[in-house]
């Protein structure tokens, strides 16, 4: 691909073709500078590409955002400190004109979903990092989006909390049936959470490999299983560029983004 001549403009991402099927959990992993967060943010219309187009759910990224086709979870929770947990979760509903009763019901559902019923009237500074992320996830799910975009939401948490949050997330996404596009830099996390791990490499950012994860139903024993470690090794090798062509293919129903294998 051509290198843009203007100083300061680096081609951060090459041709990307990515699809996420309905209810599928896709993890994006790669070293720093491979553009995984950038890609996610472009999809979410939080960053505008200087050239090229993005199609999300058959629309432009901007239109998809305005139509609220997805929920976004940030790395730093992004909660409003002056609002209670309940008020934080109901923020999207409030913004989009959902009336009071419907809001209250939905928020109670969500509090139950993320297991924070006892903390509804607390304020974010009183919560631990993991709990804050749970609130953020509940908020992202408030309007039952078909797709969840998550930008390293567990990045700031310690290992034990991370594992607990991963269990929670698997349960939540199973219950809601939402598709997830999850950016992470942790290999075990990607393998545990995802149906497919998309491996990216930098300079320029591109998809180098797609690894299918066939671990089935996740439970307490998953992290001890032999298949888990095998999958981790596969992904690690892919990251190091030792594997050849990827063995994943990315077709599926309800494709949200056009797909093609890329190298």
């Amino acid at each position, binding site marked *: 691909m051509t290198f843009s001549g203007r100083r300061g*403009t680096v081609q951060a*991402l090459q041709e990307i073709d990515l699809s996420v099927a309905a209810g599928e959990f896709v993890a994006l992993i790669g070293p720093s500078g491979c553009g995984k967060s950038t890609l996610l943010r472009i999809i979410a219309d939080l960053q*505008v590409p200087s050239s090229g187009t993005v199609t999300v759910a058959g629309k432009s990224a901007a239109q998809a955002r305005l139509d609220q086709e997805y929920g976004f979870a940030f790395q730093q929770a992004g909660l409003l400190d002056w609002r209670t947990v309940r008020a934080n979760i109901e923020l999207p509903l409030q913004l989009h004109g959902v009336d009071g009763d419907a809001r209250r019901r939905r928020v109670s559902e969500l509090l139950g979903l993320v297991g924070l019923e006892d903390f509804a009237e607390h304020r974010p500074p009183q919560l631990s990092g993991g709990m804050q992320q749970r609130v953020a996830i509940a908020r992202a799910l408030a309007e039952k989006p078909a797709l969840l975009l998550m930008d390293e939401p567990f990045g700031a948490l310690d290992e034990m909390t991370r594992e607990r949050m991963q269990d929670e997330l698997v349960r939540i996404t199973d219950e809601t049936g939402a598709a997830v596009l999850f950016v992470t830099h942790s290999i075990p996390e990607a393998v545990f959470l995802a149906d497919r791990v998309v491996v990216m490499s930098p300079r320029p950012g591109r998809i180098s490999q797609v690894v299918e994860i066939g671990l089935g139903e996740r439970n307490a024993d998953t992290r001890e299983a032999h298949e888990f470690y095998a999958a981790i090794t596969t992904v690690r090798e892919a990251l190091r560029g030792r594997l050849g062509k990827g063995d994943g293919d990315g077709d599926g129903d309800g494709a949200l983004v056009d797909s093609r294998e890329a190298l």
Partner: protein
Amino acid sequence: MTGLALQPARPAWRRDARLMRGAGLLRVIVFRAGGLVAGLALLGVVWEAYKAWGPTGGAHLLGISVLPRTDDNAMPHLWTIWNVLGQQDAVGSQQTLSFGPSSSGSSGGQTVLGAIAGDCLQTFQWAAVGCVVGLLVGMGLALLLDRSRLIERAALPYLVASQTVPLVALAPILAQWDGSIKIGGWTWSNGTSIELVAAYLAFFPISIGMLRGLRSASAVQNDLFTCTAASWRQTLLRLKLPTSVPHLLPALRLAAAASVVGAIVAEISIGQGAIGAKSGIGTRIWEYSQQSDSARLYASVIAAAVLGLGVTLLVGLFDLVLYRYNRLGARD
């Protein structure tokens, strides 16, 4: 299908307000100055518009006057104020009894503009001395308060309360000190009282700003100095003073403006007696307020405003000098 070339910088919808050296700083200054000019022009338009269309006798709400009268004496036209600067300032010397013969002689041949400019310079001198004294006292106080939490807890309430004392109140009392206090060969003059009042107003923002600055080093930085067994003096010189610069500079600007206010207000309350041959812009304002020609009064008030602003900008230059220590974005 499609490639995505990206700029690594921020998208258009997110404003980037960080100051940068060189071209960036110049752009900010021009932008601000342009805004200031636009704002002042807007005010001028509102002024003249009100004069043209506002109620002549002003407006009253529940018996209290809310809008001012629009006649030419209450609200002179902007160009009248401009013109008055060229007039001769002979009026002041005759009508005011408070000035000695020497001052009336000097202002006899002066224009209003010349008189005002001279007064501003005198006020500036008094304010400058007061500001320097306030700076030294404020810094010393901050160092003292930083040294001992006990002293801080004892003294801070009084420090805060000291600023609630209306210094004009002290001024008539200070006026009595003129000529009565002698140390060595030097006699306390009214000028000294004015400098004292200016210093009084200046030391407070300095001491508060400096105290905050001395405490502003991060925990990591403090730990570093503790680990290397640095003495209090070394920590002061190499850590606390440099990190206090971003807090001291805005405080210095506040102190500069405050010292001008102090000098002017002191002049007014002391100078109703006599400051001898010297006259500052405060006395000039008082003088003109006793006369019927309001245009001169407006001119002198505007001059005082310009003085305050000029002093603040002047002190603001220190920001550039101490650029190295002024961590960008470290404003509180």
